[in-house]
């Protein structure tokens, strides 16, 4: 599986309150959440993001609340992958559980700027910055997490297993 698109670059500690502010948590409709994704740090994100685009953060991406609405909002925006130096643990769990690919790769984060064309191979963890012609090796997912993401998340994964 691959993801390809333009990068949206942010800094350290992007928290779930800015990914999807609490004032919009009175709904859980995915498309509604996507409309307000990243609004408090990047008011134009929802307008500019295209299918396949990639979010790149620095350290502790997704810190703060356990709201699954945060990775849902990102996924529903069309984002194919989030790359960061490190992820906050609940965000990490939630992303895997809902089938949003996320990769840790400090080197890539240092060498990707907003607007760069980036391609990510989820199976191998390889990240290419096509604009700068650079390549990085992120940590590939353990097998069970790959299966989870391929199934489209934990719910589908458990159901598939139960059906077998």
């Amino acid at each position, binding site marked *: 599986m691959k993801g390809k698109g333009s990068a949206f670059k942010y800094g350290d500690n992007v928290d779930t309150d*800015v990914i999807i502010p609490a004032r919009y948590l009175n709904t859980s409709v995915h498309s509604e959440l996507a409309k307000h994704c990243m609004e408090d*740090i990047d008011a134009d994100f929802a307008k500019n993001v295209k299918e396949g685009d990639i979010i790149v953060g620095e350290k502790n991406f997704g810190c703060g609340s*356990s709201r*699954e*609405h945060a990775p849902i909002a990102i996924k529903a925006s069309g984002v194919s992958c989030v790359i960061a130096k490190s992820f*906050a*643990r609940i965000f990490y769990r*939630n992303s895997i559980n809902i089938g949003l690919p996320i990769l840790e790769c400090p080197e890539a984060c240092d060498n990707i700027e907003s607007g760069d064309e980036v391609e990510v191979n989820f199976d191998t963890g390889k990240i290419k910055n096509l604009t700068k012609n650079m390549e990085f090796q992120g940590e590939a997912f353990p097998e069970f997490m790959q299966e989870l993401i391929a199934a489209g998340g934990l*719910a589908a994964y458990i159901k598939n297993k139960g059906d077998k």
Partner: protein
Amino acid sequence: MGMTMSQKLLAKKAGLKSVRAGQLIMADVDLVLGNDITAPVAIKEFDKFGKTDVFNKEKIALVPDHFAPNKDIKAAEQCNCMRQFARKNEITNYFEVGQMGVEHALLPEQGLVTAGDLIIGADSHTCTYGALGAFSTGVGSTDMACGMATGQAWFKVPTAIKFNLTNKFNKNVGGKDLILHIIGMIGVDGALYESMEFSGPGVKNLTIDDRFTVANMAIEAGGKNGIFPVDDIALEYLKAHGAKEPTIFEADSDAEYEKVYDIDLSTIKSTVSFPHLPENAKTFDQFDKINIHQVVIGSCTNGRLSDLRKAANILKGHKISSNVRCIVLPATQQIWKDAMHEGLFDIFIDAGCAVSTPTCGPCLGGHMGILAEGERAVSTTNRNFVGRMGHVKSEVYLAGPEVAAASAITGFITDPNTIEEN
């Protein structure tokens, strides 16, 4: 190699003799928690499993506390979604408005948590119950759904940081100052993926409420859980609240820790975390006068009876500044009643505070005290992220109840030791 307290508990719940850091395990959970924000998402996921029943209707807790009493139509619909699910599945521990309180104060109070429990909650501050020697951690809605269906959750066994506490607090200093100090020291990702294990002779000098406050904010250092040893103080609390029989886990003497910090509690000073991260912790010798517009006393961090007592003790005989709105939110109905009978409400209301029914309310910028552009609040809550309590250009300063009450009186962030006692 020895195991930490958290590791031993996880091994037991996974049915394994031992576990090591980094290992992926499936474990049985004792309680699955959700609230009016996270449960509706989990309920949708739950329906996808195609299962008709929850794994155990007594081991699920559903608390409408965030936007309840319903702040608007959408919130009303979310609460209703949870209510209908609770009815249909005969969930024993569903707490309707009138019984509900802020979840992390409510569950221990209702005796739903005991030492040795493994608890997941679709709320990041689920880590609070570590104060009672449980392994409890925040998860997302999908994990909650899976937990409700199967009674299990996957975990990556964490490494741990040990905080060795000695001595005791000075006057007007408490659990909140300690945890803000620790987060200031190690940073908001200082304990990322790790357990924060508290130990040492100083533990006995922390009240159970101090421990709740400290464990509550483990997540603000990125921690997976925060956990305290189970001593007489914890056992007494469990007994008084009718909790199940406790199981006590102790760290092995040769357990490995990533880091060990020694903290002398008598050196901790009143601490305030500046916007927009809990790690921006400062003491009063490190900043000048900062005017404020609002004070919030409440939340799962500091909305318990002892917190209200500390605030009332400072506010007694004083009036709050005419530039400030001070909002007091007792965390549960029981706390509300106790505070009322003790006469704390007389003190608050005579001082000019508003006293609210239990709710998360302003803590997450929901309702009951939203900030306008440019406004500043001192709050006993746990997060001061951009826009957390309202407008993106508003600011939240985190502090304990003593600092919050003192600041309400003067209108600027104030050291409680400078307020005259009545």
